[in-house]
């Protein structure tokens, strides 16, 4: 295995993503500012100003128009990108469904920030979790390196003929977006070869075959069949995500799967977590394991489609699992989105762990090691006693 030449850099998450975008060199980027995403489009605008990309930059007047322009650009056969956060993603809501429904490949980094009200600019996952049923593929990142790597892989996943679905690359607001991180970047030429040339399946600009995109489909049409095909594409995405992650690993020495497991084989209980908190959780899990405590962890990378089969296989031997959710579903006691999904996935399993949910970090509330230790200690008691005292827990609330 020959690892491609790389450069060691110190970059913020936003700079890492902007660099990935530059190396992808999309045909069109629609840019609109929102904290904490702004520095992505700012950085990319400078690349355009310096003539380092072929991209036509469209400085739209809202995120609604950013996603509209991306839909128009992808329909015109272009490789297109935008980036957003929070209220911006929420403003795009109806268009997220149109982008996936029209089966338009595109990549959108979303810097996770909570949704108002109260207005708050800090990290939680309620923005992208609100879009979990919009037919987009969701890839979570732990740090700037993963945000960079995911952005490059997302192009290949999105444009794969068996998938053709839009992909959001998720990185935690401020914690990843504004922290300086050591990372490896690839050479421009390596990225160019990896992402290859976009081959659209159809285009408004195909002079030989004028194309009608977004036709009206009523009661006697094929709406239901389109939606079933969309679900099929999501199912196809599992293998494509794995294949692209393996190929990327061969290229860079950093292989990617649908999730990353740590210490699970000999664990009796484990924590499942998304995004930047995985780093802190891993630290605490390592400490506890060094004291002989049988704890493991899973860092979930692919949230949509939800890798239920692999997760069932990974956790069914455990006595107890704690799911850490950085958003709530407000369903009156059902817990966070990852918790409800995993619990539902395990319903048919004969062997399954007891499950508890920890909702943490809303609006950027810090998750220190002590809180993880508190949750892990409670989880150990669940595993030992076989009893769940409190199913849904809020970690780090001021009391």
């Amino acid at each position, binding site marked *: 295995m020959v690892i491609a030449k790389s450069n060691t850099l110190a970059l913020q998450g936003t700079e890492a993503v902007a660099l990935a975008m530059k190396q992808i060199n999309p045909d069109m980027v629609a840019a609109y500012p929102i904290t904490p995403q702004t520095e992505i489009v700012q950085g990319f605008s400078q690349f355009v100003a310096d003539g380092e990309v072929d991209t036509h930059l469209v400085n739209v007047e809202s995120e609604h128009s950013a996603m*509209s*322009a991306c839909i128009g650009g992808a329909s*015109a056969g272009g490789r297109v990108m935008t980036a957003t956060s929070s209220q911006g993603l929420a403003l795009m809501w109806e268009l997220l469904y149109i982008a996936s429904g029209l089966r338009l490949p595109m990549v959108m980094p979303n810097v996770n920030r909570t949704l108002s009200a109260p207005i708050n600019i800090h990290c939680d996952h309620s923005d992208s979790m609100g879009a979990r049923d919009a037919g987009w593929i969701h890839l979570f990142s732990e740090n700037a390196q993963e945000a960079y790597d995911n952005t490059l892989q997302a192009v290949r996943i999105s444009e794969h003929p068996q998938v053709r679905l839009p992909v959001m690359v998720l990185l935690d607001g401020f914690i990843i977006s504004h922290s300086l991180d050591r990372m490896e970047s690839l050479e421009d030429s390596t990225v160019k070869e990896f992402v290859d040339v976009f081959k659209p399946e159809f285009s408004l*600009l195909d002079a030989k075959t004028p194309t*009608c995109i*977004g036709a009206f*489909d009523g009661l006697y049409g094929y709406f239901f069949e389109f939606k079933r095909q969309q679900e099929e594409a999501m199912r196809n995405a599992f293998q494509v995500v794995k294949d692209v992650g393996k190929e990327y690993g061969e290229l860079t020495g950093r292989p990617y799967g649908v999730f990353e497991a740590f210490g699970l084989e000999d664990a009796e209980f484990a924590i499942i977590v998304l995004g930047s908190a995985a780093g802190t959780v891993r630290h605490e899990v390592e400490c506890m394991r060094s004291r002989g405590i049988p704890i493991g962890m899973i860092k979930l990378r692919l949230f949509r489609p939800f890798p239920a089969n692999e997760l069932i296989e990974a956790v069914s031997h455990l006595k107890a699992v704690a799911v850490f959710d950085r958003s709530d579903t407000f369903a009156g006691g059902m817990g966070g989105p990852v918790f409800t999904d995993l619990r539902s996935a395990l319903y048919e399993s004969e062997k399954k762990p007891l499950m508890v949910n920890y909702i943490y970090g809303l609006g950027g509330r810090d998750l220190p090691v002590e809180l993880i230790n508190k949750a892990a200690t409670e989880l150990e008691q669940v595993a030992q006693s076989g009893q769940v005292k409190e199913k849904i827990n809020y970690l780090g609330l001021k009391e």
Partner: protein
Amino acid sequence: MSTKLKDLVQKPELLSGGHRMCAGCGGPIAVRQVLMGAPEGKKLVIANPTGCLEVSTTIYPYTSWNTSFIHCGFENAAATLSGAEATYNSLKMQGKIEDDYNFVVFGGDGGTYDIGFQSLSGVLERGHRMVYVCYNNEAYMNTGIQRSSATTLGAWTTTSPHGKESSGKPQHRKDLTAIVAAHNIPYVAQASISHWRDLVRKAQKAFSVDGPAFINVMAPCHRGWRYPMEKTVELAKLAVQTCVWPLYEVENGQWNLTTKVRNKKPVEEYMKLQGRFGHLFRKDGDREVLDKIQEFVDHEWKKLLRMCGEEEE
């Protein structure tokens, strides 16, 4: 370019017959007249916001458009097409495509004056090369006749009904053509399906400019205005003759009256033919509203004459 009928009828129809728009609808007339002004040798990408035209011309698996076509949402036809236009420029610059394209939006007044206004304004400011045509029938007709900001004072719609406490829509319409002109784009025009040669000529100019162009076309709807379907063009003509809908253009900031109106007719001649104003003509009708409409039309007409450097009557 010719605006002679014998030449125009030779051009291929880009909107084929057999679509599901109502008999007597002004919308497709506007579309066909504008497309007669499209340059030869160039391909078109047409966008529609959600509306009658969109749902009636692209019923899957059929399309009436002999061009590429895109529908995305209701409020974003301009933004959607701006992304296509920017991508076209990028692909063209990179040598990935060869053909030349023009980009055209046909949107109703709801999708243009109201919900699509921000998206339109953004496109005008950014200077995309695009012809935006509003086929204006002064209300949301696709959802069943609801008032928009293009609806005339006093008009009945299902959301501005007349009743004990109401004489129809309480506000004057918004002057969108002037608002678009205030964006200082190369070409803005107001036109009517009744004056086809004027409209074709305006479309030719709109297609030829290097930047955004906007045409606001009066295109009456007999279902919403409540008149016999064969009177669509007559109503559009009366709108011009009463100065309810003056025809003009703003070319690089220069205002120009394109149809002079001698012996301006009273607005009542236009209004009394329409059921949407019927309540104003009843015995107990609100004469004050009729007077206000005449006053408004007179005031706007005088203002326009001044803008166009014409002598006031």
